[in-house]
């Protein structure tokens, strides 16, 4: 195996075709040639994971949910109450369940009724679960061709799983 230069010579940033390329591995070793050949391809490979795409979306939606903490009453100028902590905790629970199942929503937004809604979309269909401050949980699924499906759920774990299953079937069908 090739020798590796002293840690002090390790460069943090490797630009293309810079002299720094020589610092890591012996100039004439087969491994160095392999390394140069593959650098760009490795970068391309790093962008293809479905799991990392889902994890990135999960992180983004948690941030959106967290941002709801900063809303005040009348945040939409139409007297909408701010989302209460309990609604946000329920929404966070559903997001966790989605991530564990490697199925991710598209958006998290505050509800004009008071609460938080998690939206799922594909090209033609939309579904959302709305956790209201009142404690009610609404699942809605609709498209532009048929009547919307509205289901009232409880906050139980079983109903959360049921909502997830119904949405997956609807959106994926």
């Amino acid at each position, binding site marked *: 195996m090739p020798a590796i230069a002293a840690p002090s010579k390790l460069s943090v940033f490797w630009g293309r075709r810079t002299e720094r390329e020589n610092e890591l591995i012996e100039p004439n070793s087969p491994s160095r040639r392999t390394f140069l050949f593959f650098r760009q*391809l*490795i970068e391309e490979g790093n962008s293809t994971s479905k799991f990392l795409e889902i994890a990135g979306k999960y992180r983004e939606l948690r941030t959106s949910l967290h941002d709801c903490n900063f809303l005040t009453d009348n945040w939409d100028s139409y007297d909408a109450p701010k989302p209460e902590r309990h609604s946000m905790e329920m929404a966070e629970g559903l997001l966790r369940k989605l*991530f564990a199942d490697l*199925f991710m929503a598209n958006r998290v937004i505050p509800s004009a009724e008071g609460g938080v809604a998690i939206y799922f979309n594909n090209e033609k269909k939309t579904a959302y679960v709305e956790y209201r401050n009142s404690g009610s949980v609404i699942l809605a699924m609709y498209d532009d061709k048929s009547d919307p499906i509205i289901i009232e759920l409880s906050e139980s774990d079983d109903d959360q799983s049921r909502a997830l299953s119904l949405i*997956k079937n609807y959106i994926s069908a």
Partner: protein
Amino acid sequence: MPTEALHFNKAPIREAIIAIQIHDLPEEIIKEIRRLPEQVGGAYPKNNEMSLGQFVGQISPQGTTASASQRSLGLQFHSADTKQLFQVRLNGFSFHRLAPYESWSPFRDEAFKLWNLYRQIVGPVKTINFSVRYINDLVVPAPARLEEYLQVHPELPVGMPELIRNYYLRLELPLEDRGAGEGLLTITQTLLPSEPGTASILLDNLFVYPALTVSDDILWKRIDAVQAVKNEVFLAALTTEMQKRIS
């Protein structure tokens, strides 16, 4: 000699990928690729088109110009439960298995089957490289010391704060030829979103090997040889304690 299977009851694999990169095929092959849904059948009922967009902007003393272009790259297919997907592109092929991951054999066999379908459709190809990638999500109690669970981890000197809110570690390590050819291992670690009281550590092991215009037979023999290498690297990355946690 077949490689001994490595199995953990609570395997942390969130995604496994076999990918083969090829020299760009002629644009007209995209028509052939669009015929693939008929042949794939019910196992992968959904597909969507993949395209490559390019924006070019130039600023010069003579003025500013901008142009945009888009071209079809291929198709991505999903299984009904969305746990398996594969991509057929003008520049390559990849098969992805999301959790739950069973074992190497069914994973590799499905990839092999789909690769053959792809080859039937697109005809001769010139391979460039192949890769095998395992993306793991290691869940450990938090707060805890990384070295209790990982053999590869960042070390901080005395005098620095001890708690890590997040970190990103990336190692690129040349691989000796052990049947798959000389290659390059890229290990990436960072923290993923986690449940309260736990930390989820991403352990992403990417094995890339050059495979310049090799036959399918040799290509898949070399892919098979990665199984032993990836098992060894995975085990070496974990402490005994972490291995117990996923057993």
